[in-house]
């Protein structure tokens, strides 16, 4: 197992009280695998990623356990984390422009990584950077390495970010909404690139997104988060073909598909996303759920396996047969 997360919690102390952004997450990831984490704003998907990276805001606290190649990351010191970040776990963000330093040439920014983590000399580091820019299919990498970030388009900047992250050959790449700011045609190119790089470099990917289409395109396995908790976890195929949680089903039903009936009423999920300051003691999705049962408001459903299917877990009081579309 490359990464094992157990009972992960992320809590923020705010002026209005304690906010549990992530609450009791369990999951693991094999080397070279691709995991999608899907959720809306406030679902805890980004905080999960930041907790793994040890990059929570200063009022945030991580509890539980995150083991990376057997090493515990929760409570690890800054020094230990600095070694892991960059060298073993890389992260790319939504807006590549804000992740790059506008004052420095790409070559300087990329070489810095290799000089620091690999102890390379400047010349060698720049050569290696050019190779990596080639690998992410930036045309004319040899010349473009000497340009500044503003001279690149959005899609090209995201390629630069990916190249920079892969320089140290990390085992895990965390991508937080990497294509959300990009146009669809560019998004398609970046998704193709990530999928190729996974095969070329054997890097495992955690893809954080709100877009189920992106997950279906790239991921082997999916976690669906809501209110900081896992609602459903499954292989991508069984999740999309047979969702067993009302929230997953609601999400899939509410997206207009390209062959849905034109101008028909979409099956919307009623209500609004939960207020993390006032989460109910039971299931966080209870207030918006069409399959509500008696214990839902008060008892938090356990995440348990779906009978007859390996790698498929759900947290719901309603029976599978009730929820799953026939």
């Amino acid at each position, binding site marked *: 197992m490359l990464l094992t997360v157990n009972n992960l919690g992320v809590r923020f102390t705010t002026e209005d009280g304690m906010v549990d952004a992530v609450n009791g997450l369990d999951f693991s990831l094999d080397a070279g695998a691709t995991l999608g984490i899907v959720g*809306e704003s406030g679902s805890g998907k980004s905080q999960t990623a930041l907790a793994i990276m040890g990059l929570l805001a200063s009022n945030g606290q991580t509890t539980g356990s995150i083991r990376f190649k057997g090493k515990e990351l929760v409570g690890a010191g800054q020094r230990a984390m600095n070694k892991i970040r960059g060298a073993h776990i890389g992260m790319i963000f939504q807006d590549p422009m804000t992740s790059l330093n506008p004052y420095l040439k790409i070559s300087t920014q990329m070489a810095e990584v290799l000089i620091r983590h690999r102890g390379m000399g400047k010349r060698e580091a720049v050569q290696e950077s050019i190779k990596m820019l080639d690998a992410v299919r930036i045309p004319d990498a040899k010349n473009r390495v000497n340009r500044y970030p503003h001279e690149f388009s959005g899609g090209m900047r995201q390629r630069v970010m990916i190249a920079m992250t892969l320089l140290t050959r990390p085992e895990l790449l965390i991508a937080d909404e990497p294509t959300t700011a990009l*146009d669809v*045609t560019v998004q398609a190119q970046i998704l193709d690139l990530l999928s190729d790089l996974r095969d070329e470099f054997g890097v495992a990917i955690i893809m954080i997104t709100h877009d189920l*289409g992106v997950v*279906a*395109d790239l991921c082997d396995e999916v976690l669906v988060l809501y209110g900081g908790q896992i609602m459903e976890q499954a292989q991508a195929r069984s999740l*999309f073909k047979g969702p067993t949680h009302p929230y997953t089903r609601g999400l899939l039903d509410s997206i207009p598909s390209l062959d849905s009936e034109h101008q028909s009423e979409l099956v919307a999920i009623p209500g609004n996303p939960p207020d993390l300051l006032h989460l109910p003691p039971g299931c966080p999705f209870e207030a918006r759920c069409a399959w509500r049962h008696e214990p839902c408001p008060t008892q938090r459903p356990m995440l348990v396996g779906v009978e007859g299917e390996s790698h498929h877990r759900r947290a719901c009081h309603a029976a599978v047969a009730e929820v799953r579309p026939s």
Partner: protein
Amino acid sequence: MSRPLLSLRQVRVSFPVASGLFAKPKSLHAVNGVNLDLHAGETLGVVGESGCGKSTLARAILGLVPAAAGSISLLGKELTTQSSADWQKTRRDLQVVFQDPLAALNPRMTVGEIIGEPLGVHEPDLAKDERRRRVRAMMKRVGLLPNQINRYPHEFSGGQCQRIGIARALILEPKVVICDEPVSALDVSIQAQIVNLLIKLKHELQLSLIFIAHDLAVVRHISDRVMVMYLGKVVEVADAEELYRQPRHPYSRALLSAIPVPDPDYKRERESKFLRGELPSPLNPPSGCAFRTRCPLADGKCAQDEPGLRSVGGGASYAACHYVG
């Protein structure tokens, strides 16, 4: 066919761009020769990638940026040359819903004041009670609770704020509403609520909508006809279902094939793959067909002759390409 409500002919919107300290500023044509007809009760979707001019087109119709050339007429009245007093009258019939619902609402005004403000401007003689009654009725219509009338925007979620923005746009009972990315800032579970609301209101109030979005599946769902833009030009217009079933222009095809579909068994036809390259600079657009630098069908003719929109496939589809038909 009846006369269109809104009609654009050869509309161009240009922005001056400084090219050097002493050099004459260049012109960037964000919208370049667009024709468009919007009929009563129709929803026209406008799609394209960032920089294609779709939002600038909306702003030009609304008079928020001046059109450098061409004509825009609403209900037979020319908008591009009219005075600002006339513009005020026009805004009764022409309203807009913006992308970021919270940013579009004044945080210091209550919901009642926000939704009622257009009435205050256009019907200043309206009694206070009557104004309030109409605001409440509109709130109910868009799915807000009338007893929330004294609350402030920050007390509402994103989806509810968008409902407030829609209520404000509709309170004057306009004929045409321009929706500029009205659901892209909302969570997935909320988007469907707003799309349903817009479809419902369109029928109830007999609105004509221009629906601008980059989410192609949402646009298909809500629109009767769809217009595809590239570098300030229209490359294809067709009935929504026809366009998605059989996109004609190579750019439309690439755009549609790039949509990620929530089905792991669906393999994107990687037509998007041949969309190598980058969007050319609008300051220095390619000669001839603007799309030719990224097009798999392009040849010498495309570099010389700019293809015009012409009828393809016998139906109501129009595409600007030498090689489809």
